[in-house]
């Protein structure tokens, strides 16, 4: 479908395409995603990453769920295995990037000012400031926000959503757009579970499955390192799978964007 010649007019949308108009007014059928500009930039970023054989993970969560702490623990565990780089997104301060640099990993801080999410253009600007030669995995730590980041494709290969046990086990039901977009969900700060008897991990998983998500739920504590091996194993598997896809010339978008593309082609 080319969006220009009219071949995207189907029985489902014909009533929109050929509606009667007031005299002098012409109708143009568009059927274009509102964020198509962002999506084109994201595809461009993804092509950059694939060309350099880099696996890219977008970390999303509410503020304070432990995204940076998880990255620190991940760097400690994988520093001899992979070359890592991090793109940090926050409204203000260089604090998170400095925490990552202290671990000896290059980090680029995007300060969004008042914007509540990262978009593909910000990532593209960051990429041109970074030396990604020989990097194996790039982590993008999105702005702490369970709403907006889920709507913007950045060019990543996988989305990871963190849910800390201090938040509430019904979070996936309250923020379905975000949790549906996750390829893996990390249940963080599980060292606090003994004092938080009102958080039931099994209910968090139930709420996630209600979103028709088959994403693994990985429980861990970045502080005590409990459960960390399962997260590291998921990363290794996903990176290997991405390497295979690049060798076969396949392009991988996070689960949801892929679904969306299929659906829009089929039903509009």
């Amino acid at each position: 479908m080319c969006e220009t010649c009219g071949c995207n007019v189907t029985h489902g949308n014909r009533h929109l395409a050929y509606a009667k108009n007031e005299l002098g007014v012409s109708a143009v059928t568009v059927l274009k995603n509102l964020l198509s500009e962002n999506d084109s930039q994201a595809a461009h970023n993804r092509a950059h990453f694939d060309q350099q054989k880099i696996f890219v993970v977008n970390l999303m969560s509410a503020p304070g769920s432990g995204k940076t702490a998880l990255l620190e623990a991940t760097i400690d565990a994988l520093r001899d295995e992979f070359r890592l780089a991090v793109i940090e997104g926050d409204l203000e301060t260089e604090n998170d990037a400095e925490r990552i640099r202290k671990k000896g990993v290059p980090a680029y801080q995007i300060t969004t000012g008042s914007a509540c999410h990262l978009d593909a253009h910000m990532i593209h600007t960051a990429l041109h400031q970074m030396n990604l030669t020989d990097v194996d995995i790039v982590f993008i730590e999105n702005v702490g926000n369970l709403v907006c980041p889920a709507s913007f494709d950045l060019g990543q290969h996988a989305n990871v959503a963190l849910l800390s046990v201090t938040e509430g086990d019904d979070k996936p039901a309250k923020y379905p757009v975000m949790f549906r977009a996750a390829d893996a969900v990390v249940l963080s700060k599980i060292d606090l579970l003994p004092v938080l008897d009102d958080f039931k991990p099994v209910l968090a998983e139930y709420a996630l499955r209600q979103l028709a998500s088959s994403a693994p739920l990985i429980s861990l504590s970045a502080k005590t390192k409990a459960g960390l091996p399962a997260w590291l194993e998921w990363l290794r598997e996903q990176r290997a799978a991405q390497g295979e896809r690049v060798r076969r010339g396949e392009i991988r978008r996070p689960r949801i964007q892929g679904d969306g593309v299929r659906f829009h082609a089929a039903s509009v």
Partner: protein
Amino acid sequence: MHELSVCQALIRQIEIIAEEQHAVDVKTVYLRIGPLSGIEPALLAQAYPLASAGSVAFGAELRIEIAAVRVRCQHCHAETEVLPNRLICGECGDWHTQLIGGDEMLLTRIELVKRSAVLMEAQHV
């Protein structure tokens, strides 16, 4: 929160189309938005006058069609309308479903006034 940036992207798309169509005015803009797109229609409508100020899209009526959330069951193949945070099959309850509607954020159609129409009218007068 991010509706303003989405709205700015929408205006850029309208401007491109208006230019391609040699339009002098945009009358109506039709969108289809699903609850799982992450966009709040009311906030988008609020952002529209601000985002469209000074553009050909300013003053146009914004009509937003809300898409239903629908899933297709991979187990019993039923297609059912469901709630945004309960995407399991409405028929058999299986969670192996595929979303077939409800995550759209589409610009579906624009009604505009072409320069040629204005010229024709001027000739008639």
